[in-house]
């Protein structure tokens, strides 16, 4: 059986370097299998994050040969001949080896104004398949955060993280905005606080999405249109100008709290 060389980044926040491991290649293996075999033999403390090993949980994101991929869904025989390089996602601070601190995303999740539905009628809500389908597309997101990793706005400009939600959360906002039951309005909040305008629709996020969600076309562009419509509507502008005087935080203007 052929051998393969894995070049895996080892280190922590203080620095690190690539270490090479050479081992036999087994038929049908994915990258995560090989990482596990290295853990079980040469490097028992090699840190990587994983859970389901089935492409469903989005834990094992890493940059394989420079491209963000799920280690559990990348077959070794799909990669070109030669050494395979695995590095942690670059946009997030390293904890150790392949494990990064993705808490940025969990902070952004806390800031999403929740669904605000009308009271539920007896027997449940009536919604039609064609009305839930778009939201269902966005809810396929497994939160692998590879779209965040690859987004230039935060990958290349650390400072932008302060005022940018990123593609994962734009599809979350889009899902809520297009939800048949939702009565909240997050458009101004998205523009002012979540940095929707920073996205220049290069579609890098869409390209890396393992769930093939059309992030740019189906979520970000329609959101941008809605935000523009809301912002440049003269009546809405007048309303904002009056309200702004007593506005204490972004979250209390057009956006209502969760039920």
């Amino acid at each position, binding site marked *: 059986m052929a051998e393969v060389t894995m070049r895996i980044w080892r280190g*922590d926040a203080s620095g690190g370097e690539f270490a090479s491991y050479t081992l036999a290649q*087994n*038929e*049908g*293996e*994915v990258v995560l*299998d090989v990482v596990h075999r290295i*853990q*079980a033999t040469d490097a*028992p*403390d*090699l*840190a*990587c*994050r*994983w*859970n*389901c*090993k*089935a*492409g*469903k*949980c*989005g*834990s094992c994101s890493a940059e394989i040969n420079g491209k963000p991929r799920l280690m559990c*869904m990348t*077959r070794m025989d799909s990669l070109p001949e030669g050494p395979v390089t695995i590095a942690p996602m670059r946009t997030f601070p390293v*904890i*150790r*080896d392949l*494990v990064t*601190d*993705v808490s940025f995303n*969990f902070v952004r*999740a*806390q800031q*999403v104004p*929740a*669904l605000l*539905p009308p009271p*539920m009628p007896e*027997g*449940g*809500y*009536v*919604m*039609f*398949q064609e009305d*839930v389908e778009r*939201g*269902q597309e966005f*809810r*396929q997101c*497994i*939160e692998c955060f590879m779209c965040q990793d690859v987004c230039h706005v935060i990958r290349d400009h650390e400072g932008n993280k302060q005022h940018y939600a990123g593609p994962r959360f734009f599809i979350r906002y889009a899902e*809520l905005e297009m*939800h048949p*039951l939702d009565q909240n309005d997050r458009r101004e909040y998205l523009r002012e606080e979540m940095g929707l305008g920073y996205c220049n629709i290069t579609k890098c996020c869409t390209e890396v999405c393992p769930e093939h969600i059309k992030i740019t076309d189906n979520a970000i562009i329609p959101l941008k249109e809605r935000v523009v419509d809301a912002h440049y509507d003269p009546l809405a502008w007048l309303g904002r100008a009056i309200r702004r005087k007593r506005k204490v935080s972004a979250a209390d203007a057009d956006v209502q709290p*969760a*039920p």
Partner: protein
Amino acid sequence: MTDTYEHHDYDVLIIGAGGAGLRAAIEAKQRGLRVAIVTKSLLGKAHTVMAEGGMAAALGNVYPEDNWQVHFRDTMRGGKYLNNYRMAELHAKEAPARVLELEQWGALFDRTPTGKILQRDFGGHRYARLAHVGDRTGLELIRTLQQKVVSMGTDVFMECKVLRLVHDDSGRAAGAVAYWRATGEFVTFAAKAVVLATGGLGKSWEFTSNSWECTGDGHAMALWAGARLIDMECVQFHPTGMVWPLSVRGLLVTEGVRGDGGVLRNSEGQRFMFNYVAPMFRDETAESEEEGDRWYEDHNAGRRPPELLPRDEVARAINAEVKAGRGSPHGGVFLDIATRRSPEFIRRRLPSMYHQFMELAGVDITREAMEIGPTCHYAMGGVQVDADTAATAVPGLFAAGEVAGGMHGANRLGGNSLSDLVVFGRRAGMAAADWAESGGAATSMDGGEVEAAVAAALAPFEREAGESPYDVHHALQQMMQANVGIIRTQSELDEAKERLVGFTERVNNVRVTGGRAYNPGWNLATDLPSMITVSRCVTEGARLRTESRGGHTREDFPTADDRLGTLNFAQTCPGGAWDGEYRIEESPLLTMPAELKALLEEAH
């Protein structure tokens, strides 16, 4: 003690962030209490995310004749009557409300033409009953609950692994000791009430659908803390796991494939399930392929095909076909939906399965049959609880979800797990909140227990020589797969029992190298005592249950035994030491009220 380690105080501490833990948190948080969720993974990654087919609830949206009574009956029959009847009753009654409330929190289920929640067929359910979103229902459930929990401002401690429960000086649950995976530093949580929602234990077997997290931590910690584990011998081997390539062997293939028309064939192309219909299910199962096919269109035009018998029946049949030499090239059988449904239908109804086979096995399921075989999937057994409150034998300790036992008896029906999580997660959250407010709760933690847990966790670093935790784990998985698998027999179980004594010694001699920060070898070393504990309990229960019932099949006792059908085996750990003595005793089933008994006897 509280000066030595990072310390937190809460009213309700919830261990585990899958469906049950999150639902418990919502309930306790709504009461205005201080609630913490501690999870050894990131939020939203728990094993719940892997559930595929749906959540069972008698909403009656597709078949209006469905109701809680029929759901109750199906659950009890599926469990071969070993269930805690009161749990099955509460589950059947409350599941519809629990499904509907998810939509208030943002869930988007697939719809019927009239805009209601669509329901799909699954094994053992008389009517199409599973609310679902394609084949990613678990993702929808966990995301909905996660988003609700976050919007309520609940404290979530991620990648923080609980090592031991801690009592107060009078034996009440008082909190837990844990460690941060990122730094390796210890942390203590004091709480008035503790809810265990730690999920399953499949990682003691070699071929399993379970994620790495399913190491039986909660089962083990509850046992060590003084709770009772019941029905541990009842482990479900799901009939359809992937068998090839080897690296994904065990990965789940949803029962929805069969619910949506897929059939099982052997190497001769025969639909062999018609040869394996047990007498108990004969009246309600189709006799011919034509009758089974009519049923898919209209459940009143024929009886259900035998591919949709409960999981234990199907798994045993597959096992028998392979043994008889009629298996597929890689030791499974064929699951065929390609010849029965259009490619568009398959891709719409089963998108994850399409994706999973295409990317991992290079198989296009719209054109070819899948190769599948049984995989260790679910623990019916678990912590014995009071049905109404999820309370365990330890005051202040509650358990919900897969870690709790009783709800599913000897075999769980597909779809009953997700509904179990929200029904009993909510009840555990309510009861934990009641306990926390009652004034009877613990107010101090036993410092000695904390120190003992920390010392045990650090011991593998201090050994100068010793075995790799990975080697011990792998050997354990192979041994359990070989000796305590889907078909069991006395001599193999006896051998397993003896070998587990050796494994206990090996775990006490494990050596970990490297630092404490995010060290997966160390984390595995802390999982091993739990895995050995649950392996011991499964083996001991299987030795004593000298009959075949549900998920527990004895080659040497192939039929059910009436007397054993009236009792659970309950296990305890009197000294609290994981490597010490455990006891097992017979524990009679609850007596079912006459009106519920009558439901079981009704013709279908």
